[in-house]
Structures are given as structure tokens and as C-alpha cells.
């Protein structure tokens, strides 16, 4: 009887270990290319100095925090102007500021968000310029 029990338990443990470690060994060695973001919108091409609100590295790491801070300050405190490093000022607006330059949401925002499987809900309400005509 005892022998029969173990004959079920051990294959079970093996199947569990294979299943649990599957994500670690399945993709090993296969590097998936990071998304290539397009920065060549007509609006960005026109800029004399191609710089976002803050440095690229900062924006890449912190744009979500920056946007959430903007959101709370603009909506709840009525502070609508952001002063960036170097004294440049910007209106705290996703559609009225960010998406004016980054007018290619599909080739900019979405590519990275799809790659890291982030599902921001911004665009449930905020309208992508160009998606609807005035």
C-alpha cells in the first residue's frame, strides 16, 4: 500500500516542480528585443532642442510617478504649472502636453506598456489627440 502512495506523490511533485520553474528555464537564452520607441513625430522634429520635461533617464524611470503627481496637484490643488529643472515651465496635462509631442501613442506609449505588460487606465477617459477629430 505504502509503495502505491509514493508512486502517485513523486510524479506529482515532479510535475509541480516542472510547472513552477517553467518560466525560469523556458525563455532562458532567448533574449526578446526591447521595444524600439519612435521619437520622430513631426512635433518632436520641429523642436530645436529635443528634450522632454525632464531628462530621458528620469522620464523613463519616473514618468508614471510624475504623471500621478501632476494629476493630484492639478485636480486636487489646482496647481497646473510644473517648473522643470532649468526653470522651464509646463502645463500639467497629459493630452494637452505629453501627447502633443508624443503624438504617436501606438509607437511610443503602447510599445513599452505592451512589452512590460503594464495596463495604465489613463486612456479609458483621456482622449488621444487624433483619435477623434475636432
Amino acid at each position, binding site marked *: 500500500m505504502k509503495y502505491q502512495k509514493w508512486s502517485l506523490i513523486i510524479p506529482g511533485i515532479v510535475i509541480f516542480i516542472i510547472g513552477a520553474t517553467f518560466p525560469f528555464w523556458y525563455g532562458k537564452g532567448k533574449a526578446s528585443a526591447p521595444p524600439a520607441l519612435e521619437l520622430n513625430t513631426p512635433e518632436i522634429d520641429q523642436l530645436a532642442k529635443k528634450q522632454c520635461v*525632464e*531628462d530621458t*533617464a*528620469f522620464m523613463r524611470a*519616473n514618468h508614471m*510617478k*510624475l504623471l*500621478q*503627481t501632476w*494629476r*493630484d*496637484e492639478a*485636480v*486636487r490643488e*489646482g*496647481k*497646473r*504649472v*510644473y*517648473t*522643470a*529643472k*532649468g526653470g522651464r*515651465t509646463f*502645463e500639467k496635462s497629459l*493630452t*494637452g502636453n505629453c501627447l502633443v509631442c508624443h503624438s504617436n501613442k501606438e509607437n511610443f506609449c503602447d510599445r513599452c506598456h505592451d512589452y512590460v505588460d503594464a495596463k495604465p*487606465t489613463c486612456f*479609458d*477617459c*483621456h*482622449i488621444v*489627440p487624433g*483619435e*477623434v477629430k*475636432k
Partner: protein
Amino acid sequence: MTPSRRDFIKTAAATVLALILPGSFNPVRAKTKAPVAGNATFSKNNIAHTLTAKRWAMAVDLTKCTADCTDCIVACHTLHNVPNFGNPKDEIKWIWQEPFSAVFPGEQHAYSGERLRKLAPPVFCNHCENPPCVRVCPTGATFQRSDGIVMMDYHRCIGCRLCMAACPYGARSMNYRNPRPFIDRINPDFPTRAKGVVEKCNFCEERIAKGLLPACVEACRQKALTFGDVEDTRSEIRLLLEKRFSLRRRAHLGTGPQIYYLL
């Protein structure tokens, strides 16, 4: 091993601290300030031409307002992407009309004049001084600004509808479905709402921030709507309230409504 009295008190104090500290960071109202590169500072100043007031209010002149005109409603609803679900149960309304007897129950009697009986005053969110919706909102999504505007932060609305139950004016509407397909013509300059979010009149705070009057005030051809600061003794609305007799909706409830109906 029995701990000494001193060790016991130390451990107890550390435990209490560990329990209290995370609680002081309320996740709902917590603000995550982005760590800003360099010497950047968040501007305390606003856009220069923002209209400011101590208490925004609106006066509706019922001698000028006519029942068959919907200019203010159309202007507001197209500007703010208010959906039309096509049935009164799901209706979303920022401004709407009610018969005089419904706006001011008790102010009409069997011998009221034809003028009163025919009136259909526009009704809005009253931007109450003592707003019951703000008191019941569990997430702080509805809040009162220092200038009196009762505003919705749609980002925080969880769709519990306590505010709808609390509002004595029925000024709040719930999006039971995704409103986007039901908007005739989307205005790209104003966000839409998502499914499961309550919405209402915002006194055009986005226009005030740009130095513009509310859309309804601008759209009214009869010039029946006056928007201004009631705390400013020299404002137009204050002069009107000085001269004319005015009614407020259900003021006896103690909400302090800020829409004044001039008769």
C-alpha cells in the same frame, strides 16, 4: 528565559511603533511625490489668468430664462462629453430642466400665476457650502475646493454611489456602461468618463482655470445666468442678490446651495 521588565517594555514599544507607523501613510490619500531630478521644484503659482474667488456661485434669472430653451444644457453637455444613453434610467445630466413645482416644492399653489407654472428652470449641482456628497465619499474622490467648488476627482471614484444617495438635488449621475460609444461628438479637449464612475457639474473649473466663464453662462442668449464671487461685495452676482428676491433649492436642509434663483 523570562525577559527582564526593561526588555519587555522595549519590545512592547517597538511593536507599537511598527504597528502605528504604516498606518500614518493612508494609502487612499497618500500622495506619491515623484523624486524629481536635479533642483526642480513644483510651482506653487498657477497660470496667471486663472479666475479666483472666495466662493463661486451662480444666479439664474427666472424672468429671463425660458422653458423652451436648452442652449445652456447643449453647450455644457457637448463641452464635457456627457453621454446620451437614450433612456431616462441611465441618464447622465450636468444641467437639466425641472418644472418649477419640482425645483421648489411648496412654492407653488393652486392659484400660482401662469408664469410660474410654465417655468422650467435649469438645475445644476448646487456646489453646496456644506456638501453632503463630500461627507459621505469614502475615497475622497469628491472634495470641496477652497473657492467653494465641489469637485470630482474621477481618478478616485469607485462608483459606490453614496454621493448619489446623499445629494438632495439628484445632481449626480452614474455611468452604468462605458460612456464613450454614447457620446455623439467627442470633444478632445475634455476627458470622457469610464464605466462605474459618478459625474456631475464641475462649475467649469477647467474654464475658470483658463480665465473663461462657465460654458452655460456664455451660451445663454437671454443672459439669464450670472456667475461670480458671492463673497465679493462688488461682484455682479452680489449686486443682483442685493436687489432681487432669490430662492435656493431646499435650503432648509442646511446644505447651503450656491445656485440662486432670482424671481
